[in-house]
C-alpha cells in the first residue's frame, strides 16, 4: 500500500485529488460546551469519498464529541456540518441514519437484556414476507438468527448462539456485535469510535479487514483509535485532534509513527513538519 507522496488517499476505493469530487462530509468550526468544559473548540473535519480517515488524539481531546456531532447524537453549539457539500443539521441520530451514516459508539449502545440478533437488527428488523406481515411488522426470527450468524461469522468471535442476551457476552464479544452492526448496514459513511479497543489480536485484525472491505465497497470510514499500529495499517489519512480541535491531517505513508505521536501529544508542532507529511 505504498503511495506517491503527492497523492494522499491512494487506496483503491478512494478517489482523486481535493476538489475533483466533493467531500463526503465536512465540518467547520464545531463548538460544544458542557458547563465549563469545552469538549469541542472550533473543530474542523473533512472526509473524502472512499477513504479511511483515522482520528487520533489524547484522552479527552474531544474525538467522541466530534463524531457524536457528525452522527447526530449531540447537537453542536456552534459550527456547520456539510454532507456532499450541502449543509445539514442533524437533530437526532435518526436524521443521520436516514442519510446512510452508521456509527459504532464508544460506549457501545446495545440493549443488554436483548439477544445478539435483536441488537444487530435493532431498528431494522427483518420482516416476514407478505403484505399482512409487513403491515403488522412481524419479524422473521429465523432469518434474523441466520443473518446474524452470517454477519458475525466474518469476525470469527467464538459466540455459540445468536439468541444469547448481549449482557452475557465478554467485553470484546460485545464490541464485535456493535462493529458487525455498523458494517452490515452502512450505505454512505461508517463511523467507528475505538472499535478494536477491547478486542484480542486475532479479532482486532478481523475488524481491520472488515474496515478495508467496507472501504473497498466504496464507502468512506471514520476510524477513531488509540492503537497506532492499527491506524497505520489501514488509514489513508490521519486527523490529529488536540484540545478540542483539529491540529493537523497527516499522511501515514510519509510520516513515522513516532512523529505522529509527537504531534498528537503536542511535542511536535504541525508547522514544523515537512509539507509532504501533511495530507492535503
Amino acid at each position, binding site marked *: 500500500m505504498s503511495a506517491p507522496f503527492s497523492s494522499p488517499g491512494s487506496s483503491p476505493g478512494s478517489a482523486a485529488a481535493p476538489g475533483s469530487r466533493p467531500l463526503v462530509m465536512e465540518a467547520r468550526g464545531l463548538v460544544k460546551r458542557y458547563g465549563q468544559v469545552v469538549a469541542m473548540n472550533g473543530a474542523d473535519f473533512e472526509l473524502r469519498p472512499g477513504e479511511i480517515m483515522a482520528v487520533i488524539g489524547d484522552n479527552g481531546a474531544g474525538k467522541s464529541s466530534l463524531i457524536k456531532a457528525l452522527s447526530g*447524537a449531540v447537537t453542536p453549539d456552534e459550527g456547520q456540518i456539510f454532507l456532499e457539500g450541502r449543509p445539514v443539521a442533524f437533530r437526532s441520530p435518526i436524521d443521520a*441514519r436516514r442519510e446512510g451514516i452508521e456509527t459504532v459508539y464508544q460506549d457501545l449502545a446495545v440493549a443488554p437484556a436483548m439477544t445478539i440478533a435483536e441488537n444487530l437488527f435493532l431498528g431494522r428488523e427483518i420482516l416476514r414476507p407478505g403484505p399482512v406481515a409487513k403491515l403488522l411488522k412481524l419479524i422473521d426470527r429465523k432469518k434474523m438468527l441466520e443473518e446474524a450468524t452470517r454477519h458475525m461469522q466474518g469476525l470469527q468471535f467464538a459466540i455459540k448462539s445468536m439468541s444469547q442476551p448481549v*449482557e452475557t457476552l465478554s467485553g470484546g464479544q460485545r464490541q464485535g456485535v456493535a462493529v458487525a452492526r455498523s458494517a452490515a448496514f452502512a450505505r454512505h459513511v461508517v463511523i467507528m469510535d475505538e472499535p478494536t479497543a477491547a478486542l484480542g489480536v486475532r479479532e482486532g485484525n478481523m475488524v481491520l479487514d472488515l474496515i478495508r472491505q467496507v472501504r473497498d465497497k466504496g464507502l468512506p470510514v471514520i476510524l477513531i483509535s488509540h492503537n497506532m499500529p492499527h491506524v497505520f495499517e489501514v488509514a489513508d489519512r490521519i486527523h490529529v485532534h488536540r484540545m478540542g480541535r483539529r491540529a493537523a491531517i497527516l499522511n501515514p505513508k510519509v510520516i513515522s509513527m513516532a512523529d505522529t505521536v509527537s504531534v498528537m501529544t503536542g511535542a511536535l508542532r504541525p508547522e514544523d513538519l515537512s509539507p509532504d507529511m501533511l495530507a492535503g
Partner: protein
Amino acid sequence: MTQPSTAPPAKRSFHLPNFSTLGPLIALLVACIFFATQSDRFLTLNTFSLILQQASFVGVIAIGQTLIILTAGIDLSCGMIMALSSMVIGKLAVEQGLPVGLAILAGFAVGAFVGWLNGLLITRWKLPPFIVTLGMYSIVFAAVRIYSRATSVPMPPDGLTFLAQRFELFGTRFSYGSLLMLLLFLLTWLYLNYTAPGRHIYALGNNPEAVRLSGINNNRLLLSVYTFAGLLYGVAALLLLERIGGASPEAGQTENLESITAVVIGGTSLFGGRGNVLGTLIGALIVGVFRSGLTLMGLDSVYQNLITGILIILAVATDQFSRRRS
C-alpha cells in the same frame, strides 16, 4: 421514570434473570393446591370462572400497565381513565340514547385520548411518568365527578346485553369478558415477542439511548404505548360495565396499585426492559385466587388482609427461589 434525556441504564448481571413465567406459575399452583385442601368448593370450574371474571377488567388494565412499565414508565391514572370511559359509554348509550356501538367507540376514543395526553406530556415536556399520571389521576377524577354529576348510570337491562352473555363450557358459565381478557393477553404477548415495535418496547426500557442511537423515534414509540394503554383502559371500561352492570363515579380508585401489583408479581421489573406480559396474567390470577380462597375459608376480612400481605410476599419469594434454582 427518568427524563428520557438522561440515558442508558446499561444493566448487567451475573445471575441471568429468567424471563419465563415459570416462577409465578409455581406460586399460582402452590396457592391453588393450598386452598383446595382448605375448602372443597375451591377446586371447581365455577370458582375458576369466577376468578377469571373478577380478574377481567383489572387484567386488561394490567396489560396496558405492563407495556408502560416495560418502557420504564408507570401509570397511576389507569383506573381513572377506565372510570371516565365507562361513564362516557354509559351516558351516551343510556342517557343520550346513542347506538351502543357508537357509544363504545366514543369510550375507547376517550381512553386513547387521555392516554395520548399522558404520553404527550411525558415525551414533549420530558416529565416523569409518575408525576404526569398522578396529576392526570386527579384531573380525570374531577372530570368523572363533574361529567357524571356524581351519579352512577345503570345499564338498562336491554342495553349492552350482548356483553352480559355467558357461554357454557363443561357445564360452567364463562363470561365473554374473561375470554376477551385472555385473548388480549395472548395478542399482546404475540405483539411484544413477534413484531418489531414490540421488541423496540423492550429495548426502550432496557437502554433508551441505544434505541435512540439506532435511529428509532423514542418519542413516537412511547407516545404510541401510552395511547394504546389508554385504549386498553377503554376496553377495561367495557368489561367493568359488563361486570357491575353500570357506570359508577366511584370506580377506578384502586386499580393503579392493583395492576402494578399484578405486573410485579408477574416478574416484570419496575425498571423496565425485562418481563413478560403472560406473567402479569398469572399475577392478576394469583391475587384473585388469594381473595377467593380466603373468602371460601371464611376468614374474617381483617385476617384476610393480614394473610394476603404475607401470601403476596411468599408468592414473589417462591418466584425468586425457583429462579435461583434454575
